[in-house]
């Protein structure tokens, strides 16, 4: 049964309470994106051009290959793939580390859960730049980690300035974003479902694989999104922990902005945005069918 007059009143309330947000969303979410597109497709004198876009795909550089030979590569493709690679690795590590953490927390006593989640969140309140800075102190060759390794006679680890350091920074900075959504799904999960699965003959692994994990997919998806998106576009972590030795796509955007090439910066941002939106749409479709098919 539907409800028409309530509907009418609801519609009025909905309109009223939505009005400020709708206006805001159009003005400050939608319109700015139009501006990104506008700047991406114009030159300095605001004339239409596709040059910025083509530059992203075609600009080349000559670099030294592994064997010392000179190779011509597409500059921004290299930057983009490296960003993607590091972001994906970070996301996977976050997921592999974060899922068990979330699972353990969700299965703990309610009081422990609260405390654990609070402590997971605390680092988020410390300034992100300062946090990253502290990692430099830990990871550098004469840093805390190496002192520790030396004390344990485990040799030396050269981490700072490598891609590994950037990955560590990303994992660290975005780790809570992975745990929190997974945790909230797992904590709300009906324990009777798990009992039912056991009852129907699943062992622990089976329950995890066939019941718990499929049911927690929505949390996993939002965790993956919330880690992947910021890692792909970061520019501070790569500068500090990567020792400035390589560019990520965020560095490229920031670099172009600082070099006063607003239009090209907008073009990179625009392309990144389009790629991410497509990827997210695909991911949503994939997981939707998974969730439906799996349960």
């Amino acid at each position, binding site marked *: *049964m*539907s*409800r*028409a*007059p*309530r509907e009418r009143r609801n519609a009025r309330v909905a309109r009223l309470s939505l009005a400020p947000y709708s206006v805001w969303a159009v003005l400050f979410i939608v319109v700015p994106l139009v501006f990104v597109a506008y700047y991406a497709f114009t030159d300095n004198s605001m004339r239409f051009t596709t040059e910025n876009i083509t530059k992203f795909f075609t600009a080349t550089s000559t670099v030294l290959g592994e064997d010392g030979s000179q190779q011509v590569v597409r500059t921004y493709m290299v930057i983009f793939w490296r960003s993607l690679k590091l972001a994906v690795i970070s996301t996977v590590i976050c997921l592999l580390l974060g899922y068990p953490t979330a699972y353990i927390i969700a299965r703990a006593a309610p009081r422990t859960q609260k405390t654990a989640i609070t402590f997971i969140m605390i680092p988020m309140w410390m300034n992100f730049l300062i946090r990253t800075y502290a990692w430099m102190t830990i990871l550098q060759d004469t840093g805390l980690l190496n002192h520790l390794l030396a004390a344990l006679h485990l040799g030396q680890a050269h981490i700072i300035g490598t891609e590994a350091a950037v990955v560590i920074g990303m994992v660290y900075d975005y780790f809570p974003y992975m745990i929190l959504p997974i945790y909230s799904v797992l904590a709300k999960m009906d324990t009777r479902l798990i009992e039912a699965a056991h009852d129907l003959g699943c062992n622990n692994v089976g329950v995890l694989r066939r019941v718990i994990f499929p049911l927690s997919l929505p949390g996993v998806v939002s965790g993956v999104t919330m880690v992947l998106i910021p890692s792909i576009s970061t520019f501070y972590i790569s500068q500090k922990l990567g020792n400035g030795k390589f560019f990520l796509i965020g560095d490229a955007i920031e670099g172009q902005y600082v070099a006063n090439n607003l239009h090209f910066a907008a073009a990179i941002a625009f392309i990144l945005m389009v790629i991410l939106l497509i990827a997210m749409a695909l991911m949503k479709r994939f997981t939707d069918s998974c969730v439906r098919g799996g349960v």
Partner: protein
Amino acid sequence: MKKIIELRDVSKAFDGETVLDHIDLDIYDNEFLTLLGPSGCGKTTTLRLIGGFETPDSGDVLFLGARINDTPPHKRSVNTVFQRYALFPHLNVFDNVAFPLREQRLPKTEIEEKVREMLALVKLTGFERRNVARLSGGQQQRVAIARALISRPRVLLLDEPLGALDLKLRKDMQQELKNIQKATGITFVFVTHDQEEALSTSDTIVVMAEGRIQQIGTPIDIYNEPENAFVADFIGESNIVDGVMRADYRVTFSGHTFACVDKGFQKNEPVDVVVRPEDVDIVPLERGMLRGVVTSVTFMGVHYEIIVDINGFKWMIQTTDFVDVDEEIGLYLEPDAIHIMKKSEYSGMFGDYSSFSMELDELSDAESEADE
């Protein structure tokens, strides 16, 4: 008796689908009125119209003679006990019950006194500080009633309030509701799809189907004198067969002409004949007005419920005598066991027990109701 609420030619549609179709209904002071019908019949919508949660598309809702179509709920002297009680989870028992009084800004001492009184009435004294989430279903029910009654509305609307309770509790609550209604003198408008509940509690029953009122009457009228096949079938068990009125007090069905107590039909008018299962007597074959073969026997405790095939039409008969399956038996009907109804759109749709599945029907009813 004074009319409190009148519905005048009220219609209502949702998304083009008619839910109420020109309803006229009078509700009197101090009566216990039940809206009875299967899910989707419009009974809840009728209740919501009275409560002010819906406005009619056409027609009027009158309160003590005044049109209240557009009066919002908080300005109506009508309160509701919601299907799942709608107790405020952030308030305890006392605060839930005191809610309307606080809204009226009564002095604190008065509020306390009234709440105490009301909790006593619903037998919840001592539960004042209890968190409502920690009450049992029956207790929550009482809080909901207390809360709805505390501001002394003229009319209390109850939307399937007993649906969530188990059978035993339900019976007790039915009685208790009746007592509360008597004690307070407030008009109760009760919505249910459970005919037994309706029969046992109400002063007046309004049977509804497909957005129309099928019959209004006392429980006894409704049971004994159903106006059409729908009512006959919905209230209690009925065998409904096609018949022809030969003359006043004489009706032919199943190949036999019976004496009956009905009159006023035209000669040879086709009619629906209702025979309640408990009104059929089993007799030896030779004394039987009708004869048939027993196709199933179910033991029900007080009686057996047997299905008898009479000329291909399956009858249900309730009897204390034991008969065997496949046994051929004779059936005897007293004239007052036969009730004649005019043909209606429901003729031929009910009253045959060839695919007996009443329990299943009710189950699915209850489910769809809960889904609403």
